[in-house]
């Protein structure tokens, strides 16, 4: 028994080293830079900097766009996940692959493709003008960023929803129908509540990357629209103000932790109920 534990400790040591070097040390550095000024003295100024209007605006916009994207993803993904879960046997593998396939391509490349599609002289507008329809002016607007977020993060919503929906016993749904519930009642009273774990993890998996992204907003939002991710990135790469960048990162982390705590509570309540 003791030697077993010893062996497993030895076996686990590379992972412990990995966690230390690549997770704990960088995290410690973020906190170090975030809580000090250039001279290395302790300060909360970098964190308080979030209250500056331009930073608040970037954070607010990031929150707004990621909430919208998460909601759009949810409403697009739920019907797809239901269809996938219902056709358990036949074409399910193919459809799942179709949804995952884009993820095999580079994330930046996919976003770049949307740039080409949405540009003022891009593929969509060229097609529209050929059909003598009014052109769209989407590129460099928040709408373009939402499109990019939805496109990139949709699979992360579909998969957890599909997972929890396919786990619902068909006879549980039949039982609801049997007890007099019509299809709408069956959905809201049985299917939706039973899929809450999938909804929670789907929302988390879309909301967090959407909130922190800077690549999508840089490429599809032009230089005019700054999300909090862009502000942080620029502090590190353009202004070389690592302290401020790290401080704002800590603020963002707090938002993510709050989100995860809420979803953990929801899930636990679901289990207890």
């Amino acid at each position: 028994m003791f030697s077993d534990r010893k062996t497993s400790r030895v076996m686990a040591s590379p992972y412990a080293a990995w966690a230390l070097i690549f997770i704990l040390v960088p995290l410690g550095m973020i906190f170090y830079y975030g809580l000090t000024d250039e001279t290395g003295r302790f300060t909360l100024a970098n964190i308080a900097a979030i209250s500056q209007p331009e930073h608040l605006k970037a954070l607010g916009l990031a929150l707004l766009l990621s909430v919208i994207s998460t909601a759009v993803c949810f409403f697009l993904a739920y019907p797809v996940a239901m269809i996938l879960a219902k056709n358990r046997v036949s074409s399910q593998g193919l459809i799942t692959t179709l949804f995952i396939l884009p993820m095999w391509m580079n994330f930046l490349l996919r976003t770049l493709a949307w740039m080409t599609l949405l540009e003022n002289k891009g593929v969509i507008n060229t097609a529209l003008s050929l059909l003598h329809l009014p052109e769209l002016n989407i590129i460099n607007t928040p709408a373009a960023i939402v499109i990019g977020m939805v496109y990139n993060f949709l699979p992360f919503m579909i998969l957890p929803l599909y997972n929890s929906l396919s786990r619902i016993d068909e006879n549980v749904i039949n039982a609801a129908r049997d007890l007099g519930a019509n299809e709408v009642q069956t959905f809201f009273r049985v299917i939706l509540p039973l899929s809450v774990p999938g909804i929670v993890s789907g929302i988390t998996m879309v909301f967090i990357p959407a909130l922190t992204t800077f690549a999508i907003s840089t490429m599809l939002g032009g230089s005019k629209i700054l999300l909090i991710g862009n502000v942080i990135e620029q502090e590190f790469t353009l202004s070389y103000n690592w302290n401020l960048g790290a401080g704002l990162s800590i603020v963002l982390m707090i938002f993510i932790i709050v989100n995860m705590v809420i979803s953990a509570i929801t899930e636990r309540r679901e289990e207890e109920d």
Partner: protein
Amino acid sequence: MSPEEPGWRWDLNRKELIRLEHISKSFDGQMILDDLNLVIHENEFVTLLGPSGCGKTTTLRIIGGFEHPDSGRVIFDGEDITNLAPNRRQLNTVFQKYALFTHMDIAENIAFGLKIQNKPEDYINDKIRYALKLVNLEGYEHRMPDSLSGGQQQRIAIARAIVCEPKVLLLDEPLGALDLKLRQEMQYELIRLKNELGITFIYVTHDQEEALTMSDHIVVMNQGYIQQEGSPEKIYNEPENAFVADFIGDSNIIPATMVRDRLVRILGAEFACVDTGFGTEKPVDVVIRPEDVELVKPEEGTLSGKVTEVIFKGVHYEMSVMAGGFEWLVHSTKLSESGTDVGIRVDPFNIQVMNRPESEDEEAIGVDV
């Protein structure tokens, strides 16, 4: 079977409730039910009995509305309900693996159907108490389904179905997942429930003992056809074909020749029997239940043979007897040691003569030739 036969006289006093007319159903080109006709009467405990894949569950799902027949009609209380959605049918189902709503507590599970009907809260609470009392689980209102044992979950599934006051309760192998002792307890519980509620139970099982214990009327199915239907006694004592004889209880099924009315030649020896109308010198099958085979002294038997194997079964001994080139299965409380020479005697009314099917299709359909 015709209405003149004794098994049916008893049924005639009862009102017809469900009629399946010419129901056919196939999945992926495979025929599951072929032109099935079945009448179910009010206040009957009807069991659809057969091996897996015989179409019994599909029949139940068609009655419940979860499956749509390819052709044929389902008549409920004189009304065609073939195209009616499950939530519009006056019947409720107890599913195989309980299918409780795991996100609701027991009270909410039971109240589900009543809330859909917008019943007043007092009424719902009274019903929950009544149903829990009926299934002997008082005080379980606020437990979660996952914290209950399989048997308890099954009772909740029954309680949830009966509070809606259905005319018919459909039960799809409800005891399949329970252990033997619990299963036997639940069998008596179900009979008690049926008598207290005074409604029709349609019960699906592959367990012949369960069917014999609980049913008023048994429908034996195989390969999508009804093989025989009737009271448990009739099904057991007078199986109409080899499938039924073999499926219900242990039996000796022996090829024989009907010499003339009331006389059959089994393995070269002539036995008196009570069957008539098969013709003369006609090949038939006979069924003799192991408990109906009497072992006597070799010179007193119609056939003689030797005991080859003895197993003690508690209530009786199970013996194999080699006689006339056939291995007879014999149940008796009297032991005949292995290796003893014995004679075999069977009372005339214990020999059940059946037509022998001439092809496999005929065997499946179970037709009387």
